């Protein structure tokens, strides 16, 4: 019964000096006096953690269930290939999750699109859920007395928590691995602008000419990426002077006709090796730098399955999405809870002999508001006639004088 809604305590307390500062600055994390003694010289980059299986540095994809399928996360220096669903809705969503995770973990981003503006994707990033408990702001009620509204009077009941900030606007919570996002809201502009983002839009770099024998778009993209890696210091060969960071590369709809490639248009494409050469160069570039790439590809348009197989081999992780929208599977009662099927085509084995493929091969995904969940698809219980099971209807009428009931009562 208080005037204002007092602020509920947030999990992570940012220091007092953090209030009012621009979120772009790096805040010193005010931890306890305990310092963990580490003997290893591992570089600790926010948003990463070493894998429990093979010690690789892992980065979250933004979707926690996908992290679990890929063995804990995406290893730094690898490529994730997402084969798009028919209308490119869910693959685009996963790309947005990946970039949003980069913004929250303060990594740098590199977004490349063929004809659309990369800012279109960046403006649609989902809003992160920073605390699990909802933090409503203090509601302003009309005051009876003429007191000035200073912070001490803003809370009447929970005044002991006065000095804690109300909303976690400063992203000091980047020590977590894997965050949750609310799909119905877009990320606020100030959080997004705090992250450094490099853009690549094909018309700015390549003037199309119909007489070109070789495809220039992929080599322009590779050159631009190499230049960004070298300039911003993501190279592993660069001296380890200041704190390192990860570059997240998002390539949207590679191989589609908008990139100038006829891989999707013809059964026997003319530029057969352009995309595969690019992927080979991309992987080499990523292995020698602190970056991760997510590539989406409209594989449903590629007619040559052998080529699709070699593209899958050239990427480290590969998943394929198949959405039920528009196919005959939509009316199948088996699939009614889910939005589509997910296939894990490949999981890499880096520095080890065997890879950790997921146990279940039948996976289905569902995009909920706060989570993109990937679950094992299981058959519903068999309720056919041959199963010896008394249905509820019969039990209910067994006591009554109905004809079907009497056959169960056998004296």
């Amino acid at each position, binding site marked *: *019964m*208080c*005037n204002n809604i007092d602020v509920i305590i947030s*999990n*992570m*307390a940012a220091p007092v000096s953090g209030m009012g500062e621009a979120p772009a600055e790096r805040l010193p994390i*005010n*931890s*306890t006096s305990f310092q963990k003694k580490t003997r290893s010289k591992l570089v600790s980059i926010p948003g990463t953690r070493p894998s429990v299986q093979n010690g690789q540095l892992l980065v979250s994809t933004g979707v*926690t269930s996908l992290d*679990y399928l890929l063995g804990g996360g995406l290893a730094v220096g690898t490529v994730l290939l997402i084969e798009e669903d028919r*209308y*490119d*809705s869910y693959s685009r*969503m996963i790309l947005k999750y990946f970039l949003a995770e980069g913004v929250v973990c303060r990594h740098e981003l590199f977004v490349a699109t063929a*004809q*659309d503006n990369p800012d279109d994707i960046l403006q649609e990033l989902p809003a992160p859920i920073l605390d699990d408990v909802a933090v409503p702001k203090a509601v302003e*009620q009309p005051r*009876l007395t003429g007191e000035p509204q200073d912070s*001490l009077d803003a809370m*009447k*009941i929970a*005044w*002991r928590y*006065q000095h804690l900030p109300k909303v976690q606007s400063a992203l000091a919570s980047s*020590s*977590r*691995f*894997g965050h949750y996002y609310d*799909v*119905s809201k877009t990320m606020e502009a100030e959080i997004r602008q705090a992250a450094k983002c490099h853009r690549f839009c094909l018309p700015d770099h390549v003037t*199309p000419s119909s007489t070109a024998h070789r495809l220039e778009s992929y080599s322009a993209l590779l050159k631009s990426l190499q230049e960004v890696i070298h300039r911003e210091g993501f190279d592993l060969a660069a001296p380890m002077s200041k704190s390192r960071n990860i570059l997240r590369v998002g390539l949207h709809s590679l191989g*589609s*006709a*908008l*990139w*100038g*490639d*006829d891989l*999707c*248009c*013809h*059964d026997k494409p003319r530029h057969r090796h352009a995309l595969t050469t690019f992927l080979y160069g991309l992987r080499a570039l990523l292995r020698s730098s602190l970056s991760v790439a997510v590539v989406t590809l*409209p594989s449903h*348009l*590629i*007619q040559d399955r052998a080529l699709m197989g070699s593209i899958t081999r050239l990427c480290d992780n590969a998943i394929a999405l198949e*959405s*039920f*929208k*528009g196919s005959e599977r*939509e009316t199948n009662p088996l699939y009614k809870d889910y*939005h589509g099927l997910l296939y894990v085509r490949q999981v890499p084995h880096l520095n080890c002999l065997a890879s950790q493929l997921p146990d279940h091969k039948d996976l289905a995904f569902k*995009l*909920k*508001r*706060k*989570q993109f*969940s990937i679950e094992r698809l299981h058959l*519903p219980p068999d309720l056919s006639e041959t199963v010896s099971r008394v249905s509820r209807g019969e039990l209910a009428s067994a006591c009554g004088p109905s004809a079907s009931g009497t056959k169960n009562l056998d004296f």
Partner: protein
Amino acid sequence: MLSELLQGIETGGLLIIQDSCSYSGRDLLRSFIAAALNREEEVHVLCFDVSEDELTDGLKPPATQRLHVHNAYPDPLGWTDHPAFAVQQFRLEDLTDLVKQASQPKPATLVIDSLSWVLRHAAPPAVCRTLQQLRKGGAVRAVVALLHADMHQRGTVGSVCHLASSLVAVAPGPKGNEAVAKITKRSKSGKVAQDEETFCITEDLTVAVLSRPSSLPEAKPNGSEEEQADPTANLTFNLRLSESELEAKQKLTLPFVFSKEKKTALLHPGPGSGRILYEPDANDDYDQEDPDDDLDV
């Protein structure tokens, strides 16, 4: 949904009518032209497949002032010296000039009959790029194109239809003059709506939608927003406060409310409060709608 499309295509939209040799989509294309003219829009038509007279047959004179036909039918490949329009001119710069020099300042609708002609003589990636640039540029408001799906490879048809914001695939219907249209509409937010309707086209180029055999439910990949329902409405008891009640509530003294000096005294000797550091583990993949993870509904 067909009637909604006829009433207007959103700005920057690409509508593709996909037909085959069993049913020609040209009548539907002409009804789109007629609907656009009736909405007082400027329409530019690139005419490859049939002659201009056949295309504009049935369109009435007051509306045809806004119709500009670029007749490529006599000489589509530019073999004579002065073609009206040739396939080589299907590029962004030439098309923008063509549209701008003829029409009023407001952007026009571009109708292509048919895109198959262009795809056979130009590279599909270049055609896709031109279509995408036309949508993004300001000269043309919307593009409607006819595509003969059986004339091209599946990948080409798929690539072009991948760009489209709306796709209408027509097939012959159960009765003679009826046809079945499968409509797929993609909105900018990522929602995809599909519908299947039976229609027939009358003499004056209006489309009569006859029946809707099935309407599939829409998927919402971006989630629906929750509406903030007022919890104090529709109750049998009164939860609202009147003005005097509000005043009385604010005057109420609460227990454990200390004076200001005591509050500051208690607050300030508290530096370095504890921090809770938490790494989410597998149990955190928590679904609020299904906490025990045992629902199979």
